């Protein structure tokens, strides 16, 4: 207590530094507390719980018996899973096409000469986004209504004299996926269009002018200049679509509930049915975890072989 001279000053400085760090940590902790409280309760706990219970025959409440990897084996051998995966493949192709095709329309609008027409087309094309997705779905259900009198599509065919083409669009196993894919045709209105258009807008005008000087035609310019320059937008859309598709089932649930005859069954719907209608939470969890793994691997792969769209997000914001 007697020889504290210069050392004491250093010590207190250290102490105050540490205290400040402690205070900072405490402040940060308090700032983070509500978020982590929510995440711990509603995100981390359910995730861990579900992953853990893939090893159980489990109805969520009373029945909980350890069965090892039986659920995974059942899933691999489950004919439903095979059908659902095959259907998912078709949906995957179709929806990918749907989400990427607005790029062509974005090009069409972008290449208009007058800013005013560009503005109007752009606005009009995104306008239907104000309609909730479920409403769009239900309107399409009305379009596919099987009766020749009140079904929009059937009535249209009837007025063109094509009665023999009238059919119950959503109850033909061979047609149902096609019918589902055609929902919201021509698929323009949506965030992919916005992203593509924004991407095109960010192409420096010098590049475009230079391409004109070089005598590029439209097609050449699109392939050689636009696509390489907006490739991150396309990747972003593709990855988001991929993640979305793998877990999508509300759409199918509302339209067909997977029918007829499982012709539109998808893994997400199988999960939903097993867990919430069949009381097989353990099996549902197994499907969920498998979907998670699939999404994880696909996302990693796409990050590995493409530019990370997230990295780009940060970069663009900096500029």
């Amino acid at each position, binding site marked *: 207590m007697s020889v504290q001279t210069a050392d004491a000053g250093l010590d207190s400085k250290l102490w105050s530094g540490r205290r400040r760090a402690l205070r900072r940590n405490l402040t940060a902790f308090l700032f983070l507390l509500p978020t982590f409280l929510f995440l711990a309760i509603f995100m981390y706990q359910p995730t861990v719980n579900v992953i853990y219970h893939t090893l159980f*025959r489990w109805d969520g*409440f*009373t029945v909980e018996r350890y069965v090892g990897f039986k659920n995974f084996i059942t899933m691999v051998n489950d004919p439903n899973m095979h059908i659902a995966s095959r259907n998912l493949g078709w949906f995957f192709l179709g929806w990918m096409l749907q989400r990427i095709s607005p790029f062509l329309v974005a090009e069409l609008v972008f290449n208009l000469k007058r800013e005013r027409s560009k503005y109007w087309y752009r606005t009009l094309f995104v306008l239907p986004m104000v309609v909730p997705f479920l409403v769009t779905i239900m309107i399409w259900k009305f379009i596919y209504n099987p009766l020749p009198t009140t079904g929009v599509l059937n009535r249209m065919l009837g007025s063109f004299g094509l009665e023999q083409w009238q059919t119950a669009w959503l*109850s033909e196993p061979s047609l149902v996926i096609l019918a589902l894919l055609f929902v919201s045709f021509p698929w323009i209105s949506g965030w992919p269009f916005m992203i593509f258009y924004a991407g095109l807008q960010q192409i420096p005008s010098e590049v475009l002018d230079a391409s004109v000087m070089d005598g590029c035609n439209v097609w050449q310019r699109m392939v050689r200049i636009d696509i390489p320059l907006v490739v991150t937008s396309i990747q972003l859309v593709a990855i988001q679509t991929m993640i979305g598709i793998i877990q999508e089932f509300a759409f199918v649930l509302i339209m067909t509930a997977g029918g007829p005859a499982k012709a539109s069954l998808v893994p997400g719907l199988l999960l939903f*049915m097993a867990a*919430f209608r069949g*009381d097989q939470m353990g099996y549902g969890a197994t499907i969920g975890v498998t979907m998670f793994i699939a999404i994880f691997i696909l996302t990693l792969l796409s990050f590995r072989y493409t530019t990370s769209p997230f990295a780009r997000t940060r970069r663009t914001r900096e500029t």
Partner: protein
Amino acid sequence: MNRALSRRQFLIGTGGLAAGLIAACAMPAAPMEDDATEGSGMTGELTIDMQYVPGKVTADTPVALHEILHIASEYEDMHPGVEVIFEEPFKATEAMTQPTYFRAGAAAGTLPDITFTYGLTFIYDKDTIVPTTEYLNQPNHYIPAGQPGSSRWLDQWFEDVHPIVLADGNNYDIPVGWGGPGLVIAYNKEIFAEAGLSGPPEKTYYDYYQACEQILDMGTIPVESTLLSWEWDRMVDYLVRAMGLFELIDINGDGFCDDVEQTRAAVAGIVRLDSPYWVEPTRIWKEATNYYQPGYLQMAQTTSAIGYGEVFMTEQTSMVWNANRIWPQLMELGGTDKFGVFNLPRLTNKLTPWGEEDPTWLIARGTESKTVTKTARERGHIDLAVDFLKFMTTPANTARLIHERLGTNLVLPTIKGLEDLEVDDDVKGLVSDYEADTAKPGFSSDRIGDWHFWYEWFSAIQAYFADDMTLEEMIQIQIDVLPTFIENFLVDKELHAEAAEWEKMQADYTPPPWGDYTVPNEPFVMPFNA
């Protein structure tokens, strides 16, 4: 008296959100539970869920039900200190099966004292429901002396709709309503007249299909229906009865086949999916869908873009199944002058060689039973719950409940002493079926395997109906998946030891009289087309 639906709940993690939202979103404050002061038996808050929330319009009760509220009110007047509170039923969204809600409620501790069940066709975990056998043997003191039930509560019920005894020998349910052929079919009198039909088809399927044929000849679509298995279910019931299998399945002899009994029957080979009682109805049904509106394969009642009954109401079909759902609209659109109703027909041997020449007996099943739950045990409410049920099931009160539902959802009276009921002749006829002992409880074929099995079965039906699959392939799919679901059931209920015994029974058991029946792949031919 607070009739509002109160739910015990606790709100967690609500800090930090806007106070206005808290006020707006929070439900009526949860009642403080003073359980400690209750338990003396005949006072306290008695919570009940009905199948249909009283006073509310649902798809199945387009006219809201109120009688139960009056009955509860009268009970409260007789028993000061008792408050009867109606809670939401556990099954109110389509996403959940009733047992799931029941189990969710049991896990969360939110079960009411009395819950409804479908006549206990599902096995609940034993500690969540309270056996009522001893109470059923007590007198019902709400019944005047000398009438059935006054010395023993159980005597109130018709023999064949006795409360169901589960495989453990105990009784857990108090049947309130039983669905007979409760799915009413409505028909358009004008279209029928045009087709030369003077009235509804007689009592058999044969007549019903013949009427369909006549209407189809005229160029009108005969029936609006969805691909729900009502027709099929009833036919399976009939055939199981007709082949004498029912008694083999029903080991405890209570006239009902619960989950354990049916699983046992499947293990022992009594329930066979390649047998005629399972296959023939499917064949008949496929041909019957020729009379359905286009797109019936896609139609689900809750999520279609056309409301159920619309095809019928816009006169595009001549009949509609489950017409109770659209009863009020039919009354608005022309009432009984324009629309008539009849009940689901019965089987005769004109359709299968296993039916009887005359229309067979009436098949009925539990639609609404009451079960006392562990909540009542925990809160000391068992006596109170039983007493209320006794009051509710007196003939006078049951008559009120039944009468109220006639216009909306036909429910058969299950107890005696309702002769004075002012009902139409059809219903009187059904009641007399009980008295003449020509009504039988159903076999409940939809309890074989779990829901998952049913999904398989249903999807296969769709494929078969869409001509994507032969009948043989369809049946094979069901046969293939059945063991998995039997196994799941055994695991859930820890019944492996019993199952080993059941398997041994296969040796002792003589196959029922269907001879060398094989699954036919050619379409069923309606008798009038043969």
